[in-house]
């Protein structure tokens, strides 16, 4: 659920904020038309078209890949249009710049938005200074900077929360297994613990045999469905205290505390046999290869233990698949 909300939030916000701005521009155009400020009518109409285009573009972007730079161009064009009105109508144009500041922080990435606003601040202040008095320019710059600063605070916190969301999630969305980030963290803890208690520790890397051919034949979707089934099976087979992890593409890992080399081979063999006999949905027959590795006195860190299991796994695959192999020191 979190996955979907974080990928869908961006286009939806963009469509919404462009839409709001377009509506406001249309209203402004109408008002200015009533009072006969025809230059402002043109500006507002062009801004309306630009924002409507931005809204449509964001909608299209959900399906088709469009260059992100287009949004930057839309905002820059809008900003230049409004600034070009400053000489004739200082007050009116000035007020339109404030919403643009908020808009840019909602649409552009944080750093680009900050750059955009700094540029706009300098340009608009200079133009105001040139056509109005110095103090108006300073006052405008100060209030614009204050608004921009607070908008940036909101945007920065949003960015930070999005990062924490990724950091804190420990499950793989497709299979319900733990993800790799959690694997590395837990493995690190368990290595320290095994070191302290001098108890053994083993891990298993597992891959479905000929997975690429299976996906080429049945499509990406059935590959995901298979991973979910396999995850369910592994969950049922491991003991209390063990845990299983999925790297999101093809490989499963099992973390087995207090399990020596002989023990891990027995468990791996049982999983291999069970996978061969298990009734899978949408596939007749399936085999898996497993690579095991155990903690020894020379492998004391997470990466070397994982790469040992991976080496053992590719050894098993090289030797004809559907087998268990243990890393030999």
């Amino acid at each position: 659920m979190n996955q979907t909300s974080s990928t869908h939030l961006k286009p939806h916000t963009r469509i919404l904020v462009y839409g709001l701005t377009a509506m406001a521009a249309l209203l402004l155009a109408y008002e200015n038309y009533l009072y006969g400020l025809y230059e402002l009518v043109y500006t507002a109409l062009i801004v309306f078209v630009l924002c409507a285009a931005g809204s449509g573009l964001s909608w299209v972007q959900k399906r088709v890949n469009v260059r992100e730079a287009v949004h930057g161009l839309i905002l820059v064009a809008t900003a230049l249009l409004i600034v070009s009105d400053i000489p004739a109508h200082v007050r009116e144009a000035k007020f339109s710049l404030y919403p643009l500041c908020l808009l840019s922080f909602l649409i552009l990435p944080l750093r680009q938005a900050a750059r955009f606003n700094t540029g706009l601040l300098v340009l608009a202040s200079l133009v105001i200074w040139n056509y109005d008095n110095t103090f108006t320019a300073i006052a405008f710059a100060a209030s614009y900077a204050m608004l921009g600063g607070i908008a940036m605070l909101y945007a920065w916190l949003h960015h930070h929360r999005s990062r924490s969301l990724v950091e804190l999630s420990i499950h793989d969305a497709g299979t319900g297994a733990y993800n790799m980030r959690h694997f590395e963290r837990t493995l690190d803890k368990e290595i320290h613990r095994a070191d302290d208690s001098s108890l053994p520790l083993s891990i298993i890397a597992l891959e479905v045999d000929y997975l690429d051919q299976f996906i080429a034949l049945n499509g990406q979707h059935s590959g995901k469905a298979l991973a979910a089934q396999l995850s369910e099976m592994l969950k049922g087979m491991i003991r209390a205290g063990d845990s299983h992890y999925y790297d999101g593409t093809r490989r499963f890992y099992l973390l087995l505390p207090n399990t020596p080399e002989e023990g891990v081979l027995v468990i791996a063999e049982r999983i291999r046999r069970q996978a061969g006999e298990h009734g899978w949905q949408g596939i007749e027959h399936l085999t898996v290869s497993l690579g095991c590795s155990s903690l020894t006195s020379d492998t004391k860190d997470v990466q070397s233990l994982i790469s040992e299991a991976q080496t053992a796994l590719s050894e098993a695959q090289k030797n004809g698949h559907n087998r268990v192999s243990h890393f030999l020191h």
Partner: protein
Amino acid sequence: MYLPRFSRLANNLAKEQARARLGPHRQDQIQAPWNFTMSQTEISLLLQSRVYVWSSLLAGFVGITGLLFGHTPIALTALAFALLLGLSSTRHRLAEPHEHGPLAHLIVIFLCAATLISMIGLNPLVEAWSFVVPLLLFLFYPLPRAIRLAALYSLAFVVLGWLFFDALERMQVIINFVLCGALTGVFVYLREAREQALKPLTRTDDLTLALTPEHLYADLEKEIQRSEREGTGLAVLALGIDNENPADQVLRDQRLNLLGQCLNQQLRAFDSYYRLKTDEFLLLMPNTGAKQGLKAAEKLRVNLRKQLSTNEHKVSVSIGITTVNVGEDAAALVANALQALHSSQTEKSNHCQLWTSNDNE
């Protein structure tokens, strides 16, 4: 893409914060790699105080130039605003981010009043500040109150704009203000949506980085099973601060925050700590017997006393220790550890005590 810059910023903020907390006489204790993680609240508070300082400087600048150019009423307003902002940038509570002091209310009231009054007098500086007000309201107050205040303010703004601006400007200002309000609403919606998504994932207490007690019994039960399976010991430590809570909440928050960081650094990678009550913590130390547990507790007690005490206040902690026995469940272990802690706190503070069954008498 943002990662290196992001973590560097967080690190710098953390260092700054530590410097502010420890005061000038203990600056030498701050070392370069501060790799503990900062909580959401801390980061947002640090950024807020930064925004205060910058806004204060900006307003001050406007005030001074206003005086130079002869715009006295605007200049005085800006200077008063700068003063208010500068005053409130100094102190914040870590625990309740939305609980701001009277100064925050004063800032908001001042800003609202200044912008609304300036509309009547058509003061071209201050009315631009009204675009900032909704954003500030949502930053300062909890959501329901912020919505009410923002709605009230917008209404006042629109009505006054309608009455006092000339026809040409009226719609310009009102339409742009309403658009700004709507965009502010989007910002706030994004913030709330992220917070909702984060809530079930955060297992740690913001202030101390300790785990929250919801999962304590489940985790402890797992550890007990595992110690039985592996035949290793399991020590449960209850840790409490001996001294009275200071009345000053800012000080209390800072002390707890520091305590959390010390625990974070001094425990082993596979130990975990939970915050039970305001100043009581429960520590799970797997693969630890009674003797080792007592030793670890003594070390912790001495170190914490050293780290938490300042020149003015001596702060000490007491620790109750219990180890798992056959047939004991999680609830019994927690109760025993707490009992040992309380008896050591009533007898003499700054002390570690091992739980024994005749403590019951």
